[in-house]
């Protein structure tokens, strides 16, 4: 029997900044080797959570255990196990990549850094001539690759990626995600990934917590989360004949018709086959397709609903 080891345990974590609640008692657990996503809009509390987990910020309440160590009582033990990558990370601009890596590696106590740097750098698409360049001459994408190399050389079992693709163009961002995925598969690290970009989270994370206004509103696998918080399915098709569409089913939420293009919205995907059968029996169709909501649609709807509920609940005040 496989034993699941919890390496990150966050319990009722609270943090306020000048009277504003940044985290309102959030709790979650992350298993060893899991890639866990924290998804939320700007100001939701993602970075605050990561900063507390990486000992860069003290909480006002609650408890965070990383690898069995308390982030408040044993910060040095925690720091030995974790590393954090953000888009804001910097190197010494006037030094070359070699000089930078030599410095940081000595700090980490890694002495065979050069071989590791070239090995990891090669995997990430950095070339040997790049290492002789000063960091001032690096693009944002190259700098983020080197940032990842720095982490891989340090080789901590737990990695926090706090919006690491922020500021990268879509192509570099995609490449970076693919590199991350490759590294995560090979290195078996426990990863916390924060982002407001749904595609990234959906692509990389095994489980997601949706964070909004300092609270976790949902936790689960991306697919299950989508179904749970936004279960609608959409059947799209074009009518090719002159027949009129007469469609009824308990699963249908509503139908939109523009010319001969029809969109049928279903409450959930359970009766989708029956509905499609009814459609093809009723009218002649072409270009029939079934669409699932993206996590982005689910997320927007979910956070909007949460905000609306909150506004309604406090409207009398």
């Amino acid at each position, binding site marked *: 029997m496989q034993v699941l080891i919890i390496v990150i345990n966050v319990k009722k974590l609270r943090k306020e900044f000048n009277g504003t609640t940044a985290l309102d008692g959030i709790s979650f657990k992350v298993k060893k080797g899991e890639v866990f996503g924290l998804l939320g809009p700007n100001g939701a509390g993602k970075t605050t959570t990561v900063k507390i987990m990486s000992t860069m*910020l003290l909480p006002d309440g609650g408890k965070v255990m990383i690898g069995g160590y308390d982030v408040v009582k044993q910060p040095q033990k925690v720091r*030995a196990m974790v590393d954090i990558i953000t888009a*804001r990370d910097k190197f*010494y*601009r006037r030094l070359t990549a070699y000089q930078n890596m030599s410095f940081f590696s000595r700090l980490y106590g890694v002495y065979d850094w050069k071989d590791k740097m070239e090995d990891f750098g090669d995997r990430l698409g950095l070339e040997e001539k790049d290492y002789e360049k000063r960091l001032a001459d690096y693009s944002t994408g190259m700098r983020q690759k080197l940032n990842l190399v720095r982490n891989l050389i340090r080789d901590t079992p737990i990695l926090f990626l706090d919006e690491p693709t922020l500021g990268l163009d879509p192509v570099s961002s995609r490449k970076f995600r693919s590199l991350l995925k490759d590294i995560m598969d090979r290195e078996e690290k426990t990863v916390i990934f924060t982002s407001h970009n749904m595609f990234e989270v959906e692509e990389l994370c095994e489980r997601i917590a949706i964070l909004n206004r300092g609270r976790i509103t949902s936790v689960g696998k991306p697919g299950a989360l989508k179904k749970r918080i936004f279960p609608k399915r959409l059947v799209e098709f074009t009518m090719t004949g002159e027949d009129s569409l007469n469609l009824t089913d308990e699963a249908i939420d509503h139908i939109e018709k523009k010319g001969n293009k029809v969109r049928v919205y279903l409450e959930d995907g359970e009766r989708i086959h029956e509905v499609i059968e009814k459609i093809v029996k009723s009218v002649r169709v072409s270009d029939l397709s079934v669409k699932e909501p993206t996590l982005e649609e689910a997320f927007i709807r979910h956070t909007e609903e949460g905000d609306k509920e909150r506004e309604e609940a406090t409207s009398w005040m």
Partner: protein
Amino acid sequence: MDVKEYFTILWAFVVRDWQRRWSYKLNFIAMLLYPIVWVSVFGVLGRTIDDAGGTGAPGGFSMYMVTGIITWRFIRVGFFDSSWSIRWEQHIGTFKNIYMLPNHLMIPVSATALSGFTVSMLNFVEMWLVAELVFGISLNMTVPSFLFLVLAWLSVIGFGFAIAGVAILYKEIQAVFTVIFFSFQFFCGVFFPVEALPRAAQYISRAIPITYALNGIRTSITHGYIPTTDLIVMPVAGLIGLAIGLITLQLCLKKALRDGKLERY
């Protein structure tokens, strides 16, 4: 952490700083020329005053001036390098990567101070050579007088740590301390004897350890011994400074961790 690991980290900081200095070639040349120009200006000034009848300072006023600025330069670099260390890393954005190591923050701070010490040593040798070869001022630096110079450097880095801590929270504090530190040139007998100051100002002079550092160095060069008072005051001041520095750094760090100001700059 074992001793070897500790020295490896210290050495990494020293190498990094010299690589960074070397990357700014003109600044590097200026860093080498600055103490030469400095000692030349005050060497000529001292000699002019000596030629005009002197001030009665042992060894002549040019000797007085040169020992003053050599000691001052040593102390100044020690103080500023330790006090700027954290703020500089925060400013360029590398602080997080250093803080995320399991080591205590004192290691990078003291490593930066050590790196500054190597600069002080280079400047010291330059100034000594110019004083001897160009102005014929014979600085009779014995081993005890050199060790006393190092003690003077140690006595201020503790205060540097304290300012490094305060600067985590209030970046503008650096400017305030820069003014205060440079006022020590007036009070501590860098360019003229403390006795030339008004009586009230002399009380302030006696409360600042740098006064004793300058007096001890000068006496050891001109008379071959270090006064007992200076020998007692300097280590005591150094220990008090170090204790204040460590406590202040720790308290400021804790407040920055609570307020979320550790990375923000």
